[in-house]
C-alpha cells in the first residue's frame, strides 16, 4: 500500500492497488471463515430450536468428543496444505489407542510414548515413501491404512483382546476436567495453538505452504521439499497416535473396533474449513470450525431424536453437501471479478 518507490523509478505495477487489495482480502477472509460463518448460523438455529442443546454440559460433551478428531484433522491440515493426503490416520488412531492401553501398565508416560513412537514411525515411512519415491500419497497412505490395521489386529489377537488402561493417572486424564471442561480439550487447544504458530510463524510453516503451492518452484527456491513432506506425515502420524491415546484414556481401554471412516471425516472437516485439497492454501482456524461443525451436526441430529439411523445418514450426507456447496458459493461470490 505504502508507496515507497523513489522518484526516478517509475511504478511498474500501476494497477489499482486499492480495489485489488480489497477483493483479495475479502476472498481470503471468506474462504478462511466460510466454515465459521456456517457454524455460527447452525449454532444460532440450534440454540433457538433445541432446549437441550443450550446446556453447558452439552457444549462440553461436544468439545470432548471433538478432541480426537480435532487432533487428526490438525495433522491432516498440514498434510493437505502440502498437497498430500493421509488415509492412514483412522488406523493409526485405533492402533495408538491399543498401544496406549497396553503400555499403560508401565505408567502414563509409556502410554503416550509407545503410540507416539509407533505411529510416528509409520508416518515417517509414509513420508519417506512419498517424498523419495514420488508415489502418490493417496496410495501410500492407503497401504498404511491396511498395514496399520493389520498390525493393530496382530497385537490384539485379531482384535478380540481389549487391553484395559492400567494407569490411574491416564484414566484421570481421560475423564477429569479443569473448569468443567475435559483435560483433553485443553491439551488439544494447546496443540492447536502451537500448530497455528508453527504454520504461520515458522520457516517450516512457510515451507509447507510453498511445497503445496508449487513443489517445483519451492525446490528451486531452496525449500527442503522432501524433508518438509516427510515431516508433515510424521506429524500426522504422531497426532493420530496421540488422538488414539487420549481416546483410550477416556474410554479406559484400547478399543479395537474404532476408527473406520475417520480419515474421510477428517478430510471433510479440513475441506469444509476452506483448505484446498490441491494444496498451498488453508488455515487451522478453518479446520477447527470444520471439525466443530461436523460435531454439532451430529449432536443436532440426535436432538431431533428418534430418527431412524438410515435417515440420519441421508441427512448427514445432504448436510455435508449443502455446507460444502454453500462454502464454495461464498468464496465464489467474491471471485467473479
Amino acid at each position, binding site marked *: 500500500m505504502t508507496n515507497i518507490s523513489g522518484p526516478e523509478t517509475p511504478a511498474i505495477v500501476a494497477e489499482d492497488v486499492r480495489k485489488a487489495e480489497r477483493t483479495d482480502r475479502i476472498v481470503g477472509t471468506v474462504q478462511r471463515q466460510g466454515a465459521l460463518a456456517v457454524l455460527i448460523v447452525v449454532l444460532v438455529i440450534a440454540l433457538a430450536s433445541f432446549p437441550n442443546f443450550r446446556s453447558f454440559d*452439552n457444549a462440553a460433551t*461436544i468439545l470432548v468428543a471433538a478432541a*480426537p478428531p480435532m487432533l487428526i484433522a490438525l495433522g491432516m491440515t498440514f498434510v493437505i496444505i502440502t498437497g498430500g493426503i493421509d488415509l492412514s490416520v483412522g488406523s493409526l488412531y485405533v492402533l495408538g489407542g491399543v498401544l496406549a492401553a497396553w503400555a499403560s501398565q508401565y505408567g502414563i508416560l509409556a502410554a503416550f510414548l509407545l503410540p507416539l513412537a509407533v505411529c510416528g514411525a509409520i508416518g515417517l515411512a509414509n513420508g519417506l515413501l512419498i517424498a523419495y519415491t514420488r508415489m502418490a500419497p493417496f496410495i501410500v497412505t492407503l497401504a498404511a491404512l491396511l498395514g496399520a490395521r493389520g498390525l493393530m489386529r496382530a497385537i490384539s489377537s485379531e482384535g478380540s483382546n481389549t487391553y484395559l488402561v492400567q494407569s490411574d493417572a491416564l484414566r484421570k486424564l481421560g475423564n477429569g476436567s479443569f473448569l468443567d471442561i475435559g483435560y483433553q480439550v485443553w491439551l488439544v487447544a494447546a496443540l492447536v495453538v502451537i500448530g497455528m504458530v508453527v504454520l504461520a510463524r515458522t520457516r517450516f510453516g512457510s515451507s509447507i505452504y510453498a511445497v503445496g503451492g508449487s513443489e517445483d518452484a519451492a525446490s528451486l527456491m531452496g525449500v527442503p521439499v522432501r524433508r518438509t513432506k516427510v515431516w508433515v506425515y510424521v506429524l500426522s502420524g504422531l497426532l493420530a497416535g496421540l488422538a488414539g491415546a487420549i481416546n483410550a484414556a477416556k474410554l*479406559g*481401554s484400547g478399543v479395537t473396533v474404532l476408527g473406520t471412516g475417520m480419515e474421510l471425516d477428517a478430510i471433510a472437516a479440513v475441506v469444509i474449513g476452506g483448505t484446498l485439497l490441491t494444496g498451498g492454501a488453508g488455515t487451522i482456524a478453518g479446520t477447527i470450525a470444520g471439525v466443530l461443525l461436523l460435531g454439532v451436526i451430529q*449432536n443436532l441430529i440426535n436432538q431431533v431424536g428418534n430418527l431412524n439411523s438410515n435417515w440420519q445418514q441421508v441427512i448427514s450426507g445432504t448436510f455435508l453437501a449443502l455446507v460444502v456447496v454453500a462454502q464454495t458459493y461464498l468464496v465464489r461470490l467474491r471471485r467473479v471479478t
Partner: protein
Amino acid sequence: KSEDSDTASSGTAPSAGAQVVQSASADAATCTLEQFGGTKIDLKTAKVGFSQSEKEANPFRIAETQSIKDEAGKLGITQLTTTNANSQFNKQISDVEQMIDSGVQLLVIAPLNSDGWDSVFAKASAKKIPIVTIDRKINATPCKDYLTFIGSDFAEQGKRAADEMAKAMGNKGKVAILLGAPGNNVTTLRTSGFKDQIAKVAPDIQVVFEQTGNFAREEGQKVTEQLLQSNPDINGIYGENDEMALGAITALKGAGKKAGDVKVVSIDGTKGAVQAIVDGWASAVIESNPRFGPLAFETATKFFAGEPVGQDIIIQDRQYGTDNAKADISAAY
C-alpha cells in the same frame, strides 16, 4: 457389521418369539434400588434413553429397536429418546453422554463393544442413572457401573452349535468356521465356545479353516467359494451368524454340492436359516433372540419399585433342527 443380520420380515410376534429368562440359580446376584443408590421414579413420566449400536439395517437390529419402542409405547412412556451409533463406537459414547446431559433417568444400551465405557460410567454414576445393557455385556461391575445385563450367553451359543455340528457330522470329519467381524466380542465368544466344545465332545472333528466373513452374506459366500477350492473334502461349515451360513449355502449350490453333503450349523434363528433346515441344506440353527423391550422395561419397573433384579439376566435361546424347523418356523424372525 452386525452379528445378527437376517432375512425379511421384522416386527415382533410377541407370542411366538418372546424372550424367556433362564431360570436363575437361587444364589444369583441381584441388585436393588437401595444397593444401587438411585431414586424412585415413575417410568411413565421419566426420560428414557435408548442407544442402539448398529444401523437398523438388519432384522436383528430392526426387531431390537422396534421392540424397545413398542414396549415403551405400550407402557405409556412418552419421553423415549433413541440414538444410533452407526457402528461407530465413539459416536455411541457421545450419543449416550449427550442423553445423560439432557437429563435421562434410565438408559437402555445395546453396546457396540464390551470395553471402553469408562467415561459414560463416570457421568452416569455421578447422576445415579441406572443402565440396562442388552444383547452384549459390558465388562464392568453390575449394580455399580451399570444396573444389569440382559442377553444371551454367546459362548453357550457356540457350544450348542458345536454339539449340533458333532451330531450332524457323526463326530468326525473336517469343519470350517466362518468367523464374524474381527475384534467383536460376539465373534470371540462364539468361536471359543464352539472350539472348546468340539474338542471336548468330538475330538475327531478337525477345525481346518477359519476365515472371517464379517457377518455378511456376500463375504460368507466368497470365503466359502475359496474354501471349497482349497479344501474340497470339507464336511461341515459353522457360520457364526445365519447370514454367512446362507452365503455359504449359495456357494455350496454353485459348486454343485447336494443338500446335506456339507453340514451347516449357524446361530441367530432368522426365517431364512430355518427355512434352509426345512430345505435340507442346514442341520441346525441356534437362536439369538432380539426382542428385548418387554424384559428390559419389566426389569426397570421392578427395580424402580424397589424389588431386587438380577445382575445378569440370561435369556433362554431356543434352537431349530430337522425335527422342529417346519413346525417352529413361525417363531423365527
